[in-house]
Each structure stands twice: as structure tokens, then as C-alpha cells.
């Protein structure tokens, strides 16, 4: 079997599509003018940014004036949560989130706890789903913000966003969703879903790294995170990342123009791979929701082995993947997401995330199905926990 390079870590980051890069190219060396400048050369840059803003708005069913560009998904999450928290402190100091959020949300909430806010971290069930009744019960008079991710980056579970939005809107509480993993994989309609704020990052849907956006519904009271110049309608200072923003616009247009068709293709490869893994490798558990999950996401735990060593061996065979094992995190504990769905430590340690995307071909699936069972067996043969 010939060694291949197989990239199955699209949830970590994607390549920038050539069409996207091509759209960006004129804005580096040629049409580089500052979008805030009043001369024609600057106004052309401004126009390019506004065109990108319209594309983002269209993809979310928002208004262009509700889209603010940021330096990435983490900045968008930080801004949404801190911005709403500080601007609405007079109304209350309570925030509701979940135990399975990305660190950009969790660590921001923890920071706010130090600033006098109270945060409820909702439990999830074994599939990573929140319980809507729990959410309702958690709401108090002081709740000013609900922040719940659209789709989980590790196990791929998709939350009932429209239902959450409905509850939040009825109670007059702001609802932010971290949609960094969802854009391009799920249909998003901020109006219909009653979303007040939504974060996204271009590099998760074949756009460039270092640029993201925050949707802020008109009328939402929010403080700035980055103070300074009057860019982004005075809400996010800093010379606009012109090529990055143009790339984000192009990428979101491509990623949302044909979600169904795209997902069908990715999902069919994903399902074949997942079924093959479950068939060929005993003592394997699927993590996350069996159906309500991102189309490209596989998260499985192999008993008796540890994830980092698994990744190293996969890497040796040219396969890029990810794990929730503590050993690869540099911290004492395995992934908080795997803990939250109730996995014992040793099962969490043996987790493997394969996230499929546009770089994958059917041959990649064949290759992984050939390599992975051998590798798992090899590690199991070394494991004191495994009785062959």
C-alpha cells in the first residue's frame, strides 16, 4: 500500500481554496488602499469590504449592517460575551452557557466570573445535547446572556439552536451562538432562529486564517472589545484586514451556496469511513450524536489505547487527525467535552477525531480503513490494559 497524505482535520483548520486566494490576491500588492481613506483608491478598498459584508449577511440572512469583521473566531466569541456582559451589567450579572463550549467561550466566561458575573454551565447528555428544560430552569431575573455553540468542534453535535433562540427571545435575554464549526455545514438563519449574536471564522470554511466576523443584531447593547479608530462603524477598531475580509466573503459565498450537495458528498464518505471503523475495530465507541452531528465529523474512542500515540502513528502514515487525550493537550485532564458527555478518563484518552472535508477523496477513506485498524492493534498489543 502506497503512503498517502490524508488530511482529516478539517475541524482544526481548512486550506484556503484557490478561488478564495485568487479573490484576495489583488488586495495585497495592488488594490491595497486603506478602506478609511477618502480618495478613490481607498474607497475601492471600502467597496470590496462592503461587498464581503453583504456576502456574509446573505449567508446568515442578516443585514450587512449587522456584520462586523474581527481577527478570528476567538475574538468574535470574546467580544460577544464580554461586550454584552459589560454593557448590560445594570440589568443582571448572570450568563448561561454549556460545559462543552470551545475554550474561547469557556475561558471568557471564567474570566467574567472573576469580574463578578455568575455563570451557569449547563450539562449535556451522553450525545452532547443540552436539555431545553434545564436551560429554562437555569434562567433567572438576572440572566442577560445565553451563549450556546451551534455545533461542537470535537464531537460534532448540533444543538437545537432555533428552540434555544425562541426561549431566549421570549424571555428577553440575548442569545449568542458560536457558529465557528457550523458555517458551511448547517443552514443558518439568524432571523428565523432568533439569534442575537453569532461568531464565525473564515479558516473553518476554506477561507484564510486570522479573520472572522461577529453578527450583532440591530439594537443589541454591546461594548467594544478593541477600542481605537472608527472602523467597522466605530465598533471594532483597527485597519481592516482587506484581503482577509475579501477572502472571508468569497469563502462564505462558496461554502453556503450549495450546502446540501456538499454535505451529501462529505457525509457519504464520512459514513463509509465510520462504518468501516466500527466493523473492523472492536472495542470502539462512537462519541457524539448518531444523527445530529456535523457531516464531516467522526469521533470514536478505542479502548485500551491512548490518543497521542495513535496520532503519532497515523502521522507516520501521512494521516492528519486529532484527539481529546490529555496526553496531547498538555494539561492533566482529557477534553472537557468528552468528560461532559460522561466518558471515563481512559475512554476519553483513546479518542480520535477524524474531520472530513473538501480535501478528501474516496481513496482517503480506503487508505484510513487500511491503516487505522493495524495501528490500533499495534498499540493495543503494547497496552497493559488489553487482553488479546
Amino acid at each position: 500500500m502506497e503512503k498517502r497524505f490524508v488530511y482529516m482535520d478539517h475541524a482544526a483548520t481548512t486550506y484556503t481554496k484557490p478561488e478564495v486566494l485568487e479573490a484576495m490576491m489583488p488586495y495585497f500588492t495592488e488594490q491595497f488602499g486603506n478602506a478609511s481613506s477618502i480618495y478613490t483608491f481607498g474607497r475601492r478598498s471600502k467597496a470590496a469590504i462592503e461587498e464581503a459584508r453583504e456576502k456574509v449577511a446573505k449567508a446568515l440572512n442578516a443585514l450587512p449592517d449587522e456584520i462586523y469583521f474581527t481577527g478570528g473566531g476567538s475574538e468574535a466569541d470574546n467580544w460577544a460575551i464580554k461586550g454584552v456582559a459589560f454593557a448590560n451589567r445594570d440589568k443582571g450579572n448572570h450568563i448561561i452557557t454549556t460545559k462543552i463550549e470551545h475554550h474561547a467561550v469557556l475561558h471568557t466566561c471564567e474570566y467574567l466570573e472573576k469580574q463578578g458575573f455568575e455563570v451557569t454551565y449547563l450539562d449535556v447528555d451522553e450525545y452532547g445535547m443540552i436539555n431545553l428544560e434545564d436551560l429554562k430552569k437555569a434562567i433567572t431575573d438576572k440572566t442577560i446572556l445565553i451563549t450556546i455553540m451551534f455545533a461542537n468542534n470535537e464531537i460534532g453535535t448540533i444543538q437545537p439552536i432555533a428552540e434555544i433562540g425562541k426561549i431566549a427571545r421570549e424571555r428577553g435575554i440575548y442569545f449568542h451562538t458560536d457558529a465557528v464549526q457550523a458555517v458551511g455545514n448547517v443552514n443558518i438563519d439568524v432571523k428565523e432562529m432568533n439569534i442575537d449574536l453569532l461568531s464565525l471564522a473564515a479558516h473553518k470554511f476554506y477561507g484564510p486564517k486570522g479573520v472572522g466576523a461577529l453578527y450583532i443584531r440591530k439594537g443589541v447593547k454591546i461594548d467594544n472589545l478593541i477600542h481605537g479608530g472608527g472602523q467597522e462603524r466605530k465598533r471594532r477598531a483597527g485597519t481592516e484586514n482587506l484581503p482577509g475580509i475579501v477572502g472571508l466573503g468569497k469563502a462564505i459565498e462558496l461554502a453556503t451556496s450549495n450546502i446540501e450537495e456538499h454535505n451529501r458528498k462529505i457525509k457519504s464518505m464520512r459514513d463509509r469511513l465510520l462504518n468501516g471503523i466500527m466493523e473492523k475495530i472492536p472495542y470502539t465507541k462512537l462519541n457524539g450524536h448518531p444523527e445530529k452531528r456535523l457531516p464531516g465529523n467522526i469521533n470514536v474512542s478505542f479502548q485500551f489505547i491512548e490518543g497521542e500515540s495513535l496520532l503519532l502513528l497515523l502521522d507516520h502514515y501521512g494521516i492528519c487527525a486529532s484527539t481529546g487525550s490529555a496526553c496531547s493537550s498538555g494539561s492533566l485532564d482529557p477534553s472537557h467535552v468528552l468528560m461532559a458527555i460522561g466518558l471515563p478518563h481512559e475512554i476519553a484518552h483513546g479518542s480520535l477525531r477524524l474531520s472530513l472535508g473538501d480535501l478528501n477523496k474516496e481513496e482517503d477513506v480506503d487508505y484510513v480503513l487500511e491503516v487505522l485498524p493495524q495501528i490500533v492493534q499495534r498499540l493495543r498489543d503494547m497496552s497493559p490494559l488489553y487482553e488479546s
Partner: protein
Amino acid sequence: MYSDKVMDHFMNPRNVGEIENPDGVGEVGNAKCGDIMKIYIKVENNRIVDVKFKTFGCGSAIASSSMATELIKGKTLEEAWELTNVAVAEALDGLPPAKMHCSVLAEQAIHKAINDYRIKNGLEPWEDRFTDDDDHHHE
């Protein structure tokens, strides 16, 4: 991240397996922290004539097991006892700081195996410099 030596010992680990009827066995770590190391020794005339290991853990843990078993093979028990985790790491051309604790496991497992042998043979166990098996931390 890892040195070539680590990768070599990880990809081609020496002394993997079990010894039937070993003279000493040492198991350390726990599945909660995600790393378990088990070392089997065969002792003749106070000398380790054979050693095998089984490890559940990261690349550094596997490479440390491999290197540590190599280093004590043929050594007297006293010599083997002196092997520190730092010596294992050095023999591997270094380990990342966050991965040093995996080499501690190897030292501890060897000590446990030696003391297991000593106890079985009616000898006083030697005192381990790590009082608590669990006090290794990922940092």
C-alpha cells in the same frame, strides 16, 4: 516536538511484551491520568537478565519504557535502581518539558519491579524517591 531518538523508540519499541513467570513486576500510573506502565523483570545472580514492558500512554511514555528497559538490561539491581528519569530522557536526546513526567513513570515502574522482586525474596524494599505514585503532573 520529539527527538529522532524518541521517535525511533516509539516507532520501534524495544522489549515490548510480557515475561512469563517474571521475578518482579512493577505497575505504575493509572488509567485516569491516561498512562499506565508495567515492567516485568527476570533476575539471575542479582542481575536483570531480561526485561519487558507494556505501556498505555503517549509517545513519550512508550519511548521512555523502551529506552529504560534497554538501559537496565544486563545491569545489577543496584545499578538499575540508580537509573533516573532524567537519565532516560537524556538517553532519548531530551523530552519536551510537558512530557518529562512520562519518563518518571519508567523510573518508578523499574523501582516497583525491583522491590517486588526483593519482597518476594524476603528482602527489605528500597525506598523510592517518589513517595506517591500519583504525584507526577502534566504541566
